[in-house]
């Protein structure tokens, strides 16, 4: 269908159309908002973590004091006192550590949950047109891949880094408290650490990015091969795909070994920094003890303090990269939320302008015009769906719908017939407000279509608004009831069963767990005709006034097709319907048939009238009849 071609074009050149990525400032602002929402919890957590680190620092100090007792020939009772203090400080530090970690998790995980929920809600609110341009893949990557990356950092790395950072700062303070010259000696390691980190980040960034890309490609290749395994073997391409997987895998290994090479050299440098720092602290200790400025115990404590820093410093420096990665993911997530905000306002403006246009020209001058193939309503007085002089192009200059006038009366069923690329699906999307016309105006139930659907969201009153059954069939994973309740969240089990019965989905009674049966990805695989019945049952539950049905049922037997036609009739009865006919049997039962060619309406009338007229539709019907005759007998 031509309607889908632009999305492919956009995916081929995604740089122009992918969803926005938030700026650093916007990302920081979003982070700040999340934190301030929990400011008291945040303050409490900081206090607890600080106290925990202080308690932790008591350990080397007490060990130092204990050494002093020995060096100065003290009493055993002193030793016992220090040992008990050591125990107390350790238990306190462990307890505070526990509290701090759980509090921190409440902040981080809570903020993360808020964020991912906001992102999904925003992604679902994006105008479909924008999603089609960006590609569903981009949105999926953000709600899954980026959320995962940020979660990993927030739940795995952030707590570790936070407590490590506290330990480092407080240890330096502790060293300074022993003697300011110890702190100075410890800082001797810092220049090399900073230089090494910069060296590492400069080189590791690109390499790690490449590793991630290569690993993603390998995963994609494995997915493709495994998911398409049947096709691969049928085509006899098994060896070819094995080689493809092997090649992508070896490339990823190659790159990751390069990355590890960098990482090990980085840690080698950090080790040298540790050596310099430790050597400096010991030398300063020697010097100070020689000058009787500090006790042997203090020198011991200083050395032990510094030795304790090895782990935390490694954590902070080593995870720097993870944090940067999470930052990139976060920017992409915040980008989705900002995309909705801007799209929302832009759309609102466009809709009100459109509304003005149609009330200025449209209603007073109902286009019963003198165009060829008048497509005015065949019955009824009020039109439920009205397209007036509608032209639409995905790319300027290449109209896919040209000057279309179409009125569908309340309760009327209109079938759209035509070849792929004739503009049927585009007309349906225009009627649903998914696309906005380049010229002309569209009205559904007297209002601009997008607005009507939004209003329906706000007040779940029935018998309003328009709904579309798209060509794409999707069974949402979860229980059958959960799937159906997407259309009617408050429906009772009895209503759900009634809706299924209305579309002849009697198989639902035989499911192992009834409405609680898990269907979709990871559950029971429904056959295409059953999935289609489910889509129709959702319409029955939603109970909209206008339905656009773009149902192309694949792989159903003869019996299946007839059952689906009956189900569709049941779901559409009493509603206004625009049916994109994929089988001419669907056109035959419609009140009116509208034939499209190259974006224009070329014929319009009842099935019988068009057959008699001997035009385009009559030819199509004759071909269909000849084939159908073989089986109908």
């Amino acid at each position: 269908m031509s309607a889908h071609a632009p999305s492919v074009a956009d995916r081929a050149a995604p740089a122009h159309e992918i969803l926005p990525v938030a700026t650093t400032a916007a990302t920081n602002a979003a982070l700040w908002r999340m934190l301030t929402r929990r400011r008291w919890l945040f303050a409490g957590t900081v206090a607890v973590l600080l106290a925990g680190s202080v308690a932790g620092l008591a350990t080397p100090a007490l060990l130092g004091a204990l050494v002093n007792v020995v060096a100065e020939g003290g009493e055993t009772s002193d030793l016992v006192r220090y040992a008990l203090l050591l125990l107390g400080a350790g238990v306190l530090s462990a307890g505070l550590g526990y509290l701090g970690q759980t509090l921190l998790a409440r902040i981080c995980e809570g903020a993360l949950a808020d964020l991912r929920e906001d992102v999904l809600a925003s992604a679902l609110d994006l105008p479909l047109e924008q999603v089609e341009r960006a590609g569903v893949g981009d949105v999926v990557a953000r709600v899954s891949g980026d959320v995962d990356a940020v979660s990993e950092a927030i739940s795995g790395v952030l707590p570790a880094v936070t407590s490590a950072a506290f330990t480092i700062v407080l240890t330096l303070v502790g060293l300074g408290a022993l003697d300011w010259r110890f702190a100075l000696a410890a800082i001797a390691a810092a220049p090399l650490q900073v230089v090494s980190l910069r060296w590492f980040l400069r080189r590791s960034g690109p390499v790690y990015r490449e590793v991630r890309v290569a690993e993603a490609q390998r995963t994609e290749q494995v997915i493709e091969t495994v998911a398409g395994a049947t096709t691969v073997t049928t085509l006899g391409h098994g060896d070819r795909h094995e080689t493809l997987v092997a090649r992508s895998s070896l490339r990823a290994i190659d790159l990751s070994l390069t990355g590890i090479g960098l990482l090990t050299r980085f840690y080698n440098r950090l080790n040298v920094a540790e050596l310099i720092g430790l050597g400096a602290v010991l030398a300063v200790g020697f010097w100070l003890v020689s000058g009787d400025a500090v006790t042997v115990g203090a020198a011991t404590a200083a050395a032990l303090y510094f030795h304790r820093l090895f782990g935390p410093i490694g954590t902070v420096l080593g995870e720097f990269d993870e944090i940067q990665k999470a930052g990139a993911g976060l920017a992409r997530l915040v980008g989705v939320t900002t995309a909705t905000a801007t799209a929302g306002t832009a759309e609102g403006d466009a809709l009100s302008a459109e509304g003005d246009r149609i009330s200025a020209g449209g209603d007073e001058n109902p286009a019963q015009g003198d165009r060829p193939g008048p497509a005015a309503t065949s019955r009824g007085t009020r039109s439920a769906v009205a397209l007036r002089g509608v032209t639409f192009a995905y790319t300027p200059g290449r109209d896919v719908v040209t000057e279309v006038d179409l009125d569908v009366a309340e309760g009327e069923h209109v079938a759209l017939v035509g070849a792929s690329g004739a503009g049927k699906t585009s007309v349906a999307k225009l009627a649903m407000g998914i696309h906005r016309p380049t010229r002309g105006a569209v009205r559904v139930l007297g209002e601009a279509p997008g607005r009507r659907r939004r209003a329906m969201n706000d007040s779940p009153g029935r018998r309003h608004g328009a709904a579309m059954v798209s060509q794409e069939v999707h069974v949402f994973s979860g229980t059958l009831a959960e799937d159906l309740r997407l259309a009617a969240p408050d429906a009772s089990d009895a209503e759900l069963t009634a809706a299924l019965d209305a579309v002849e989905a009697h198989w639902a009674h035989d499911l192992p767990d009834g409405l609680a049966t898990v269907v979709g990805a990871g559950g029971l695989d429904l056959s295409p005709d059953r999935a289609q019945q489910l889509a129709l049952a959702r319409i029955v539950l939603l109970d909209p006034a206008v339905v656009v049905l773009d149902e192309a049922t694949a792989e159903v037997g003869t019996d299946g097709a007839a059952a689906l036609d009956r189900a569709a009739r049941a779901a559409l009865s009493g509603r206004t319907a625009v049916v994109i006919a994929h089988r001419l049997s669907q056109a035959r039962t419609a009140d009116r048939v509208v034939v499209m060619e190259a974006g224009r309406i070329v014929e319009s009338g009842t099935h019988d009238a068009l057959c008699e007229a001997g035009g385009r539709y009559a030819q199509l019907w004759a071909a269909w009849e000849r084939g159908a005759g073989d089986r109908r007998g």
Partner: protein
Amino acid sequence: MVHQVAEALVPVLIGVVVDRAIMPRDGAALGLWLGVLAAVFLVLTMAWRIGMRSTVRAFSFAAHDLRQLTVARVLDQRGMAHRRAAGETLTIASSDTNRVAGIAWLVTGQLGALAAIGTTAVSLLLVSVPLGVAVLVATPVMLLVMHRLSVPLEARSEAEQETAARAGGLATDLVTGLRVLKGLGAEQAASDRYRRASRGSLAAALRAVRSRAAYQAVSEVLSVVFLAVVALFAGRMALAGQITVGELVAVVGLAQFVQEPMSRTGFLGVELAQKRASARRLLRLLGEPTVHSSAARPVHTGAAGATPSGGSMTVAGTFGGSALGPVTVRRGQVVGIVLPDAGDAAALVDVLGCRAPAPPGAVVVDGTDLSTLDPATGRTLVFAARHDASLFSTTVRDNLAPDGPLDPRALDASGTTEVLGHLPDGLDTHLTGRGQYLSGGQRQRLVLGRALHRPEPVLVLHDPTTAVDTVTEARIAAGLRDLPDRALLLVTTSPTLLAVCDHVVVAVSGAAGGTGLDGSSDADVELVAS
């Protein structure tokens, strides 16, 4: 291991420096021992570097080999007796292979921990026998306690990962069905549903963090008890003059250091259990019996093969619940088979495509019984792809005909030419995500185009036009009619396609039916009842 030994020596050296240099205020000794410290650091850092690199190498290549084995098994021509969902196979091919290969990390990590504990114990033994013995006794006790604690911890973090994966899967699923949701205006309901899943995931994550933090806290308390006891006894010994001050420093330094390796060793049991579970899944997949019994394989290999005069196939037998009398399709003919039940049709096509074993005598190609051929040979005679065949993420050209030139007639007949007009780079368009961003109709025509490029003399098409509109279907039907030099079997219920067949056979399930058939002028129609 060397690295961990060296790490354990650092606190010892701190003690030595205190003892030999700081206490006696000996500048030369300071220089000497700082030099030794530098040497230990050099060994430590180089050992770590070598160990890290070789571990990564071992891990990566082990994972690679396991992955290739898995992929090779999945792609085996003989198929799998028990077909797994793609998601399950994928988990095995990606996560389980990695996890099993992770044994490389486990071995080096645990050996390192043991080395660290060993070095600590030896160092302490050298300082004082009772202290060394204390470490050797305390270690197994600690291990036992930590192992006990780590088991429920593992269960919690598994539950956490599971709920997180479920929430993530739901998000992906909802966005994938975005068009459907938009059609219903069900954005709010969908987002509410996700919110509930996300809150569940949050609760599980918090539970897991609490367990982890508790484990850490307990481990800290245990080690501080150990530290306090060791410090007290070593202090008394130092006061009594049994050990020097520097030795005391080394002892407390070691007691602090040994905590981390001990808690790491506590996880050994859980890690091993995880890896065993992954290894079991992997083995089950690799050992899965094949669909085709190996007895039927070797009979005709080589004897059969595409011959220029070949291209005739006769099908007879029961497929699913439908019975089919002898139907023959010859080179240059188009024959239609109608199976009213969609499942039966799929079963027939699977047999013709050698994905399911053919009943003996049911399918005869050029005089050879398909059931006597191994699947690889059978597939050189008949091409029968599934209705839902996949496309691959490469260029359109590579999808259509990766090995040979493109045939303009096949492109036209399949309606591919039309599709190409809508693609940004025509034949060179790269299909991302296995073409899932194409419309159903575009995908179906590319799949048909690919089938028409196949060299096999007998071509079986299963409902090839369900996703295209009636006008395009009519065009494709006409194109198929005019395909030269092929035996073409259409398994379909589409009237438009059946209208162009030379011969249509309808299978009726159950008792003999009496449905009469009046075919189009040039079709010779028969009814075959079971």
